[in-house]
């Protein structure tokens, strides 16, 4: 099978990703409509006259059947029109004031916040990959040693067990009290002042990376151990290959699949916006914005936010799927069943 087989495999994966996203969009749309309180009640308040409500319903077609409303929403979404936010989000969640005069298109709000979230996601993912994977390889290759086995298990359990708000709070405390060169809060866009930006982004990135680091370390370790038990490793030993050659030629590539999988899931999760870290370190990102919208019952933003996060998640996983087929050519055949 050559490039055609690969192309076909890629098309199949793309189709399945689109189906997944359609499913998510239906789910989100339905969920929002299940929430008590109609749109006009939220917009106009409980005391609004019936005529005003009627006008609003008419304007937005709220009396149309739900499937029709769904189609309208989806088509608008695809055209980049995600609707209007009820209020321009303030920098803090507690603030309830919401002036209609400040209404802004949701897509513009998302676009403003995306750079911070994307930068944070890439930094956290980079730290997690660069630390977690080598640790896992090391732990897998020296699994015979009791000390390594014990300590790697303890470290990964700790890393996966510690909630990001605990670690984040700890960082906030330590770095606020002592001047250690990194700032807590004080986000500046990368384009304005790269140095100040990095200073502010390192702590939230580390906070977010801990879980991924532990996850990658454990996944990589298990994958390496699984590969080491494969007959072709024994065959390589029997052919006189050195441990270094065996690791470089056979172990790394064969152990990559599960690592790429968790790496993609982690990246998708990070791109969806890591609300807690953004909140703790005052990074004006996507996750924080959607979280604030939930507090303010700004359902249009929530609806669009969930779908955007889902698109990011599915897209990253699609990329991972396409990568598998390059790493392990058997994937294409398996995918076809």
């Amino acid at each position: 099978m050559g490039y055609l087989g690969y192309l076909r495999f890629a098309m199949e994966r793309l189709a399945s990703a689109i189906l997944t996203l359609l499913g998510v969009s239906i789910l989100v749309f339905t969920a929002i409509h299940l929430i008590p309180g109609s749109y006009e009640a939220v917009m106009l308040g409980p005391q609004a006259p019936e005529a005003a409500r009627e006008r609003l319903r008419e304007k937005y077609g709220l009396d149309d059947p739900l499937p029709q409303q769904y189609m309208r929403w989806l088509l608008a979404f695809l055209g980049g029109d995600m609707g209007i936010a009820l209020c321009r989000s303030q920098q803090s969640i507690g603030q309830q004031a919401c002036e209609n005069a400040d209404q802004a298109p949701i897509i513009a709000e998302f676009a403003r916040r995306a750079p911070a979230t994307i930068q944070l996601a890439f930094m956290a993912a980079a730290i997690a990959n660069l630390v977690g994977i080598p640790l896992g390889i090391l732990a897998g290759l020296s699994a015979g040693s009791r000390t390594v086995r014990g300590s790697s298990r303890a470290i990964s359990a700790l890393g996966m067990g510690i909630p990001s708000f605990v670690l984040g709070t700890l960082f906030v405390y330590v770095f606020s009290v002592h001047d250690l060169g990194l700032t807590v809060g004080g986000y500046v866009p990368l384009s304005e002042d790269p140095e100040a930006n990095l200073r502010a982004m390192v702590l939230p990135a580390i906070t977010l990376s801990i879980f991924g680091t532990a996850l990658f370390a454990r996944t990589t370790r298990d994958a390496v151990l699984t590969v080491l038990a494969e007959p072709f490793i024994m065959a390589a030993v029997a052919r006189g290959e050195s441990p270094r050659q065996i690791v470089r030629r056979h172990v790394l590539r064969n152990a990559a699949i599960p690592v790429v999988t968790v790496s993609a899931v982690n990246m998708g999760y990070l791109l969806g916006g890591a609300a807690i870290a953004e909140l703790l370190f005052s990074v004006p990102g996507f996750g924080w914005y959607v979280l604030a919208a939930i507090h303010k019952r700004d359902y249009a933003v929530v609806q669009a936010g969930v779908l955007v996060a889902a698109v990011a998640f599915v897209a990253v996983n699609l990329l991972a799927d396409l990568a598998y087929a390059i790493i392990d050519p058997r994937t294409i055949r398996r995918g076809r069943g």
Partner: protein
Amino acid sequence: MRSLLQIEQITVEYATESGPLRALDGASLNVAAGETVGIVGESGSGKSTLALTIGRILPAYASHVAGDVIFDGYSVFAHSTSEMRSFRRDELGFIFQNPVSALDPTMRVKYQLAHILDVKSSDPSIMSQLDRVGLKDVERVANRFPHELSGGMAQRVVIALAIARGPRLLIADEPTSSLDSTIRDQILELLFALPAQTGATLLLFTHDLRSVAKYCDRVAVMYGGNVIEHGPANKIFSRPVHPYTEALLKAAPGAEEIGGKIEAIPGRPPILRGRSEQCPFAPRCRWVVDICRHQRPVAQTVDGRLVSCHRAEEMASVAPACQIIGANHAS
């Protein structure tokens, strides 16, 4: 003939949760250069352990307790790690049971050969190696991944990897048991053509007595971690001396008369926890006498072969000519 491989009283144990398990209990075997030896026995007789011991590729939970493996005058246990690696690389060729899983699934065939030959993947020597093992359309095979090959093609590739550096000893552990019966003979023909071409020595570890009878010069029968009878194939197949060999030949499919049934050996092979102080076959032997239960038999030469049986002389004089598989052995 000059001896290439001497296995002397080799003893190997596996660490298990219920204590050490002795897989080889003082097995000895002498193999001359250029011979083809079939090593037969039931599962658990120590065949695979013996194969792995020669290359010192036993798993980590196995330990070499005693004895020696001497290849061309040097003990393999005396080699340093790096000496051992070049020994494996240049002198040994292993062929495993399942060819597809013995190949790295993520690497095209040509790269696997290129690594072994230490050449670029475009080197013409790769094609000639594939050609040598009877593969057709070598260009295409070279560019394939292992899962795109049939079992027979994959085993040819594994053989090509094994012989690429011209080893003096080929060790094939059940090389055909995962293949279709139609492919089996082709692979065996290929394997046994190699010693004739290159002068290599071939050890075939198998439970398939027919292929041993058909292709091997000599047979070594293993039981309870020991080689209990070893000699020329035609002699042993036509007239087994050890009661176990006789029972094994009778239990082989194809040995029964038409309409008759296969004579299974009663009882089970022993599980050794330490050195056996009796004949390991004593509990299942129908010729058993007192001494078999108290003393380990010592290998002795009887009727042109080595036999470890207290009653070997007797057995040789009364054993009926066995008209089993070996009857039409032509050598």
